[in-house]
């Protein structure tokens, strides 16, 4: 079992202690407050906490089952698509398209599932309050895998490798006797257990950040000057880290950053507003009977989520790790490159933002050099070599062979 309690409680103290040894601000080109904000973007990797609403979270057999299901096209009603068809491992678990293509063109860009275990809301609109609910949604969505509970239950029961892993993760009695809906939710939980393992590697930024933390000026100097200048903009004048906060570079919440949200003439994507309404109406949410969290604590966020007018047209603040490998960008993939994204914030259309309260977003009015620096920083958030996830590709499963040998 992975415990994050110590990490959570200890992180601020550790950061404060590290800061005491940080090199003088002038040596890095960063001010004291900027250094403090940089340190908040680590350390990396962060421990992924076990999801209390998912009894399969962290279980090796559930992870193996989820991995098989993720790549298994039989999960789709017609066998035409798998999760990996859109979340392509070689493309940082995106598909490179502006908007995803399932059985038809969908409304939104395929988000990467890397580091998804650190999130608390899932999907561009947060219509799922758990990773297992988010994993069930595309299975039953009529324009994605278009399956139903009966189809998933039949598949798991009929396939020896899937059935074997399922038995080990959830129990033989459940495999034999549970209703199809329960098996569908369990499939979601197994997929979630697998997705929790998809954590990005260390990056040039992490090396710089840790060097800064331990006061190692020589190691810090290895970080390219352009990336360092871009980082100073990111945590300083640009105030990007206000929303792209913390080790995963996201506050996990939703924002309207002035991106239009018409899907087609006469049709809009309501974003977070629709997501909250969907979530609260979903019998599989954390307030329902499928959560394994007897304490009810995991459902606290769902219990307290409130629908607000500002939610209309808000979308999830994405994490930025591996961002250079997840083009195109924004909820509908309308921006092709990181340079386009930087230009969006540089020339932000303030007319599209409500004049309510403190204005977090303002046009950055970057010079060409500053834009390039910000791109260089964003590119430094990618590991030198992307994580490799090899599909099981129908290989015999250790579980099946072990069972057969008994």
């Amino acid at each position, binding site marked *: 079992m992975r415990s994050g309690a110590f990490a959570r409680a200890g992180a601020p103290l550790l950061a404060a202690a590290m800061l005491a040894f940080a090199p003088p601000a002038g040596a890095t080109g960063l001010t004291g407050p900027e250094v403090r904000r940089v340190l908040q973007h680590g350390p990396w990797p962060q421990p992924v906490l076990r999801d209390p609403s998912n009894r399969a979270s962290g279980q090796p057999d559930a992870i193996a089952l989820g991995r098989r299901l993720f790549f298994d096209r039989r999960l789709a009603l017609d066998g035409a698509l798998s999760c990996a068809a859109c979340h392509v491992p070689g493309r940082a678990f995106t598909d490179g398209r502006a908007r995803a293509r399932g059985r038809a063109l969908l409304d939104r860009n395929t988000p990467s599932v890397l580091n998804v275990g650190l999130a608390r809301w899932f999907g561009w609109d947060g219509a799922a309050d758990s990773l297992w609910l988010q994993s069930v949604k595309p299975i039953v969505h009529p324009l994605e895998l278009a399956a139903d509970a009966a189809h998933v239950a039949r598949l798991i029961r009929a396939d020896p490798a899937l059935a074997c892993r399922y038995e080990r993760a959830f129990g033989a009695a459940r495999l034999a006797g549970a209703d199809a809906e329960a098996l569908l939710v369990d499939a979601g939980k197994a997929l979630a257990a697998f997705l929790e393992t998809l954590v990005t590697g260390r990056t040039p930024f992490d090396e710089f950040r840790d060097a800064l933390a331990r006061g190692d000026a020589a190691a810090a100097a290895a970080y390219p000057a352009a990336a360092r200048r871009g980082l100073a903009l990111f945590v300083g004048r640009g105030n990007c880290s206000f929303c792209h906060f913390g080790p995963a570079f996201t506050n996990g919440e939703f924002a309207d950053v002035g991106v*239009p*949200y*018409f899907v087609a*003439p*006469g*049709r*809009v994507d*309501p974003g977070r*507003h629709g997501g909250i309404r969907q979530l609260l109406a979903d019998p599989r949410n954390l307030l329902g009977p499928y959560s394994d969290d007897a304490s009810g604590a995991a459902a606290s966020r769902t219990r307290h989520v*409130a*629908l*607000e*007018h*500002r939610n*209309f*047209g808000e979308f999830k603040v994405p994490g930025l790790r591996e961002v250079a490998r997840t083009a195109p960008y924004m909820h509908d993939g309308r921006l092709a490159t990181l340079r386009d994204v930087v230009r969006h914030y540089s020339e932000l259309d*303030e*007319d*599209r933002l*409500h*004049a*309510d*309260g403190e204005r977090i977003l303002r046009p950055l009015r970057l010079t060409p050099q500053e834009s390039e620096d910000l791109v260089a920083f964003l590119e430094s958030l990618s590991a030198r070599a992307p994580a490799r996830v090899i599909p099981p590709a129908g290989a015999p499963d250790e579980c099946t062979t072990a069972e057969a040998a008994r």
Partner: protein
Amino acid sequence: MPKLVLALIAAVLAPAAAGAELPVFDAHVHYSHDAWETVPPKDAVALMRKAGLKRALVSSSNDQGTQMLYEAAPDLVVPELRPYRTRGDIATWVRDEAIVGYLEERLRRYRFVAIGEFHLFGADADLPVPRRMVALAREYGLMLHAHSDADAVERLFAQWPQARILWAHAGFERPERVREMLRKHQNLWADLAFRTDHAAGGKVVPEWRAAFLEFPDRFMVGTDTYVPERWHYLPEHARWSREWLADLPREVAERIAWRNGEAVIGGAFDRQRSPQGGAGG
């Protein structure tokens, strides 16, 4: 107590949900240049009708949008004039002398019930351009629709004590502060646009309930269609409004939903339109 009196009391105190779907007077609608390009007038009118709007107070940057929409649905649209030629004027209009000429030209050509919604805070209200705008409102007998803090509202009343001011978003102030202002100024009304703090899950928050019951004739609802996409939020906003209004006594709910808007804004515009009424144009 006579049965008739009891029946009347019961009718007044009955929850609003007991009646048919409430009409809504939407006191905060914009139809700016980007909106009329993506939501043409006939689509905008269809969305207003789908929302069950009785009428709406509409302004735009520039005024062309308001006039197009008024022409398309004079039964639905009550025009007001923003001191903005584009929405970008929000940040600069208070020091832009050209705004005065723009207002004068539009006021000569068209009928309006109000000037607004404008963004004006603190001492900026006493700058020459806002002062000239207030003078024009006085000359034409128009309301002011102010997205302002309480300080700016006070300054507007100081300039023109008989002004009738619709306080947009009620200044995003706490309910206690809104009540103070309503007590102090008889000619102040509050729109609740873009606010959700007064109700959650169809229930009115106690502090706001007290405000609504103390001043049932001074509040209005509004959507605030500040980007084109928000036109598609009109029906949802009306639905949401009806949901929380149903938690108030029916008489109060009806006033906030539409009667106040009709009496204060719609009625004033109808008087302007009548052959005998109105100062302007």
